């Protein structure tokens, strides 16, 4: 373990969230729960990026009174990156939910193994 385990508590919470999402993705057979886990993972990444851009005791990156001193504001770049991430995550979630809905309409279940068996019986 490195020395900054207790000072980096925001990053630690991001990692904890990420692992919750990752294990949900791996251990659950329900496709809806997999999507939820995926979304939790996304959120963890945003938290991590936002934490990387934070500077203690500084203002948001909105210029006040024409002061252009870079040390006064937080890093504006993670905000721009997170925005991209959120949009892509929303799109992917909507698309995968639509796919799951169609699977449910066809097979009457969201359980992955059952869908696999039923789709094999179709052939």
């Amino acid at each position, binding site marked *: 373990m490195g020395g*900054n385990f207790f000072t980096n508590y925001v990053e630690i919470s991001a990692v904890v969230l990420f*692992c919750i999402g990752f294990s949900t993705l791996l251990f659950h057979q329900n496709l809806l729960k997999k999507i939820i886990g995926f979304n939790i993972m996304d959120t963890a990444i945003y938290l991590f990026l936002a934490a990387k851009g934070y*500077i203690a005791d500084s203002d948001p990156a909105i210029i006040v009174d024409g002061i252009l001193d870079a040390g006064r504001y937080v*890093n504006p770049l993670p905000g721009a990156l997170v925005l991209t991430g959120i949009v892509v995550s929303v*799109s992917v979630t909507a*698309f995968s939910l639509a796919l799951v809905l169609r699977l449910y309409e066809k097979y009457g279940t969201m359980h992955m193994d059952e869908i696999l068996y039923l789709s094999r*019986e179709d052939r």
Partner: protein
Amino acid sequence: MRRLSENEFRIIRRFRRLYAVVAALVCLMMISLLFLTVSNLPIFGEESNPANNEVVERYLEKGLEETGAVNITAGIILDYRAFDTFGESTVLFLAVAAVWMLLKKEEKEIRVLMEETLTYAPKEDVIFRTVARFLTPCILLFGIYIILNGHLSPGGGFSGGAVMGSGLILYNLSNGTARTRRFLNEKVFTRVVMGALFFYALAKSYSFFTGGNHLESLIPLGTPGSIFSGGLILPLNIAVGLVVACTGYGIYALFARGGL
């Protein structure tokens, strides 16, 4: 229906057990690796962290002068990285197109579902309808405010569009689909989204005609802090906001009843 044989069952059960063990191992490895990495990262919130390098300094010191936007993040996403944002709006449009492709139903079915949703939608609820009547204009107005002030204060096209989309959903829930269709039907939806995307593409393609590195806006930047400043950022914010509001409502409508 073909029954699975005893042998196949055994294989599947063995695979399940193996999968659980491997998944647990992968998870544990991932967790320990991530914790190790995070505990070795530089201290949270320090100004000297490597993420706060000369790129950010450049954006913060020259951003106002070059883009005219007081909100530096808006300047980054809609001026320096405007093509990236165009890609994002296209991704949203593609998502709604894909959902449309998967879930679109015939007009007859939509009408049946519209009648059916009345039973569980709170349209007949007096408290909900009264509150929604007061709230919907406020939410829509707030969304417009966020979009129009995107270059001056926190917010912008994406957040304001999301607020407006939720306002539209609230209107739809409280007033019914038939009334929403008077101003937001399929035709209007397609035209607004396509028009906004086309305007964005047209507005930003001047970089192609004037040489790829040309970042100066053809529109004067105006005084920083006033509403008409920042060159193309305000119109681009409006275009993005329209796309986001429409796609947000569109995705909801497609999931709720299979059509706008």
